[in-house]
């Protein structure tokens, strides 16, 4: 069972890692943010599977912290994007 959970953890990690190609390709900031978000969820899943495989209970607390702060970076991103677009409108610049 432990081997199966470990393999599943590795698979999920591999999947979201492939998804990280979106950070490289973009094209928009939102796409990059989404790749980071997918890695966040996948990281939580991989962490839980890893914790179950190794029997380390405290890993659940790490996942809980990550889950609680999962939206934090995205919210900061949206706030920053809004400020930036207001600046652009003011100076007449185009992205």
């Amino acid at each position, binding site marked *: 069972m432990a*081997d199966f959970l*470990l*393999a599943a*953890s*590795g698979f999920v*990690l*591999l999947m979201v*890692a492939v998804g*990280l190609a979106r*950070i*490289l390709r*973009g094209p928009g*900031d939102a796409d*990059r*943010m989404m*790749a*980071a978000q997918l*890695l*966040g969820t996948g*990281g939580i899943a*991989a*962490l839980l599977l*890893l*914790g179950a495989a190794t029997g*380390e209970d*405290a*890993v659940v*607390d*790490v996942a*809980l*912290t*990550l889950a*609680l*702060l999962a*939206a*934090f*970076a995205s*919210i*900061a*991103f*949206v*706030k*920053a*994007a809004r*400020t*930036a677009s207001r*600046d652009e409108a003011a*100076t007449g*610049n185009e992205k």
Partner: protein
Amino acid sequence: MMEALNAGLALLLLALAVWTIVARDAFAAVAGFIAYGLLLTLAWVQLSGVDVALTEAAIGGGLTGALLIGAVGRLRDTEATARVERPKALTRALAALVAGAVTVALALCVLTLPDPAPTLAPDVAANIAATGVGNPITAVLLAFRAMDTLLEAIVLVFALIGVWSLAPDRAWGGRPGVRHVADPNGILAYIARVLPPIGIIVGMYIFWAGADHPGGKFQGATILAAMWLLVMMAGLTDAPPISRAWLRIGLVAGPLVFIAIGLAGAVTAGAFLAYPDGYAKPLIIVIELALMPTLALILALLLVGAPQRTIQR
């Protein structure tokens, strides 16, 4: 199986670090760095440092990302200028040479590390009973190396003073950062009302668990700070003016309690920061309880930044 997972993790870390360095667009670099912080959390778990993983998850996954994203948004117009300043090929080659030399030297050190490795783990195990706490990290942080933790709390206060001192004269004493505006019935205001109560419970839980399991005041305080910042970002509350007395008292209360208990130890137990027999655990809990609100205030306000708005009376 585990080896393959670790090797993959290490490769991913390296790839993301390289991306953070070479990416053309600053936002792309920051997004890469956020992902990097997340994978670092997994690496800490693999290195049996669950306490460290918890800290990295809270700080690397939450606060650092928000700080850098905010900065990128405001510095967007400076990127084109910086691209022109890219150093010449010769400089880059020299830099690569220096970095390569440092890497090789460090790698040689790593490969010739003494075996068996020196360790203080048996000493910690032998003395942990005297502190009354079950988590060895907490015992190190608040008993065996309490001086480090005290100085760290003071460094954090100094960092915040440093940030505040960047205020223009007219804004000194005013509110830091920008006033966030958001639709009070929108989705952002919704999450800023729903998440903080849960976050406070989780933060207190992580803090409380820290006595015997991975967790502690740093991790708990970071979560509390993130929740406060969320409410600020949703425009539901504003950052307090930095001249407020309660704020200033709150910022030094934790270190002061720590120092007071340390001085009391000098009288009752014979050394600064020593605890009298049998009182170690309650005193550690008092210090942690006093430090946590201070840390939460400092971590949140560090992220908010320097005062920018003049005081309106």
